[in-house]
């Protein structure tokens, strides 16, 4: 790949041809603020937050979409650039509920972050604010149009990551919003509830229902693990508070951060009230609660009895495609080495 040399804020930068200014800047530690840019998505240059000055160019340049060129001189901190950023933030804030106190995105919100950095606490431009009813029509996430900054990431994710097309920009001008056709509930659209849109939302407009009011972002523990559903092996991150999983996200992995509806939203079962919490032993035809000691003893006694009476081959074991390798290994080891049978299988074929 051909290398390109350019200067950003006085720093010499060398990057591959085809790199955008924003990415080139990032490679030398210069963060250019942005909303609509997202590494996995095609740049749209919609939010206008990443504008920079390029020597020789009359207009400000959207650094997320503009590719570097040899000898380019870029400035990301000029008065004109800062003014543009402030304008964007102030305009966005002028149509924003500013309810950071109860917003789940507090602490993880890009709008909040840049407003803070630019020391903007309220907008000079007052005017109409939208007050849309929060869309709670689907079971997984809410869409709070009032917080939406129309960066369009969700649309791009829907269209060009998942190739669904359930949502798009609708209406015009100030009333533009992202919605399904005719504002139908997503259930009535091709939406597959992959939650990609939620994942890429830089503010609090799209928010998983399950996490609402269960903990501030900085109170949650994050653990990386693997999705328990199909065989793709997606990397996921579980967000936990008080021994409860309240959110699933993903970064990287074979899935490159994408998930499906089950992977992202199908984890209620972990803390479900139906979970078995104590062993059960059948007594008088009924399953009743028992201690671990009793249960294990019953198992061992009965298996022992059957083995003695009918031989080891009268016992069969089904292991689990849901359990870990280690558990499966132990299970077959138990069947083979302890009980003495090769009657061990699992539902690989089903």
């Amino acid at each position, binding site marked *: 790949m051909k290398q390109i040399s350019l200067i950003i804020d006085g720093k010499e930068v060398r990057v591959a041809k085809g790199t955008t200014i924003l990415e080139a800047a990032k490679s030398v530690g210069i963060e250019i603020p942005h909303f609509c840019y997202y590494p996995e998505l095609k740049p749209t240059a919609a939010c206008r937050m990443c504008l920079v000055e390029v020597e020789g160019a009359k207009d400000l340049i959207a650094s997320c979409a503009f590719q570097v060129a040899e000898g380019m001189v870029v400035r990301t901190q000029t008065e004109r650039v800062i003014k543009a950023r402030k304008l964007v933030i102030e305009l966005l804030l002028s149509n924003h509920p500013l309810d950071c106190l109860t917003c789940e995105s507090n602490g993880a919100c890009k709008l909040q972050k840049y407003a803070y950095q630019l020391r903007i606490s309220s907008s000079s431009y007052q005017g109409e604010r939208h007050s849309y009813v929060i869309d709670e029509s*689907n079971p*997984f996430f809410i869409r709070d149009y009032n917080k939406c900054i129309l960066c369009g990431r969700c649309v791009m994710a829907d269209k060009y*990551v*998942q*190739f669904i097309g359930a949502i798009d920009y609708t209406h015009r001008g100030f009333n533009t919003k992202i919605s399904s056709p005719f504002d139908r509930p997503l259930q009535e659209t091709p939406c597959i509830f992959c939650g990609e849109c939620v994942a890429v939302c830089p503010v609090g407009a799209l928010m998983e229902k399950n996490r609402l009011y269960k903990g501030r972002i900085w109170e949650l523990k994050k653990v990386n*693990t693997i999705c328990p559903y*199909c*065989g793709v*092996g997606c990397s996921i991150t579980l967000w936990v508070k008080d021994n*409860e999983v309240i959110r699933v996200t993903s970064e990287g992995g074979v*899935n490159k951060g*994408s*998930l*499906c*509806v*089950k992977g992202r939203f*199908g*984890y209620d*079962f*972990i*803390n479900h009230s139906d*979970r078995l*919490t104590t*062993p*059960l*032993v059948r007594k008088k035809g009924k*399953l009743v609660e028992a201690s671990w000691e009793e249960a*294990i*003893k*019953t*198992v061992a006694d*009965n*298996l022992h009895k*059957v083995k003695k009476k009918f031989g080891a*081959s009268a016992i*069969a074991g*089904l*292991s*689990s*495609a*849901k*359990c*870990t390798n*280690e*558990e*499966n*290994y132990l299970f*077959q080891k*138990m069947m*083979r*080495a*302890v009980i003495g049978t*090769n*009657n061990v*299988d*699992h*539902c*690989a*074929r*089903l």
Partner: protein
Amino acid sequence: MAFGSGAMTNSINDLSQAQVFLVIGSNTTEAHPIIGIQIKKAVSENGAKLIVIDPRKIKLVDFAHIWLAQKPGTDVAIINGLLYVILSEGLVDKKFIRERTEGFEELKKVLSKYTPEAVEKISGVSAEDLRKAARLFGQAKSASIIYSMGITQHTTGVDNVLALANLAMATGNIGREGVGINPLRGQNNVQGACDVGCLPDVLPGYQKVLEEANRKKFEQAWNCRLPEEPGLTVVEMTNAALDGKIVAMYIMGENPMLSDPDLTHVKEALESLDFLVVQDIFLTETAELADVVLPGVSFAEKDGTFTSTERRVQRVRKVIEPIGGARPDWQIILEVSRALGYSMSYAHPSEIMTEIASLSPIYGGITYERLENGGLQWPCPTPDHPGTPILHREKFSRGLGKFHPVEYKPPAEEPDKNYPLILTTGRILFQYHTGTMTRRSEGINEITPTRIVEVNPNDAKKYRIEDGEEILVISRRGKVKARANVTTSIRPGTIFMPFHFAESAANILTNSALDPIAKIPELKVCAVRVEIANKKQ
């Protein structure tokens, strides 16, 4: 059998390099959505071409350049037909065949019967479309075959797979980026369960039970005597139980009461057992029949590893403490074993992995430390081996790839006067397997279309079924009530049911006839008839 091992030959991320995809018997966007994304992206953005072979108009058909809607159970004919065209139009990879394979001449002989016109008669796929598909596939510089249970859950499942292997080898689509035969595994750790020996005929690492050397190695390591004969497979176990040959069962984290074919039969079998232990996180349909139920934990409550469909071993990490008195499954096994008089002592699952690695060469180089930063794809025989993203690069596991001439055989049960329709079963995006987990996810259930049976409008008209109407689906093995979803996405003469729902369990209807080699039941084809449920009789 064709190459010497059964797993995805390539990696998920190199799928994007394929010029042509052949997706057969896989509703990828529903069952493996993330791989579905890769295919959609390659087609939409990289100009890749897509051939879908499926009796249903699955979502991928919207992206496909060619869609062949075959009559269920006719895959061998179709694949042979593709090969026929490829061969007759000189699109085979002669160099690859010459250098890497054997048995091509025998294959040729068999293929001569499978002219597109002949195949059209068997499968209902137009000869012209078949030719187009064959040309598209044959002319591609790199073509990737993706399949799933739609291929394997047949009495001819092995033949189907072998035919696909023939197709890949004849066109040289093996052992490079963007090619290969890529079976997609249905569950998160099916691959791993197989890898570590939860199969009746092989010890961990696919080491055959029948070979004495293998047994010796394990006997030494485990300090025990091992049985010499392979054991029974799932469906065979059910039959054996009914025959009184199996008397006790230990079922860990499985729900045969929904996943297995001919459920009536399964229930009888389980009820006939003297003793049944079920270890699970919920009181499943199967656990309800148990004598002892042991509460295990979910994936979030334990450490361990899963192995994905691309042979990638990855770390599962404990996130929360076990719920209530539940215990990690590995600990339960330790205790049961101890109670049975065999002491195993592992302080942590990582120690179990060390043992697996020491006994199973394909996992030989795998340790928890190495898995810390992403997974490793087996074979990974040594601690410094980087893993194997693509199988059969230089040579096949068995040396030369072998062509297996296979002939079309009809499915075990074909429609007749009394059961005029074919039922095929499958998965839907919003549910997972027997629903143990997903049926307990409130949101998911809210949006899942439950108890659905897809019926073509022609058939609906024929049987006077209205869209949304309750109908009875009846097979020789039982009947199930479900709601008709009249849609052109299913071919006429075939109906489709997902199998996730206990309340209208498709597997009450399915046939437990098995593939003679793989012992996979023919869940994808059985003969049924439909009736309107509330008709006064």
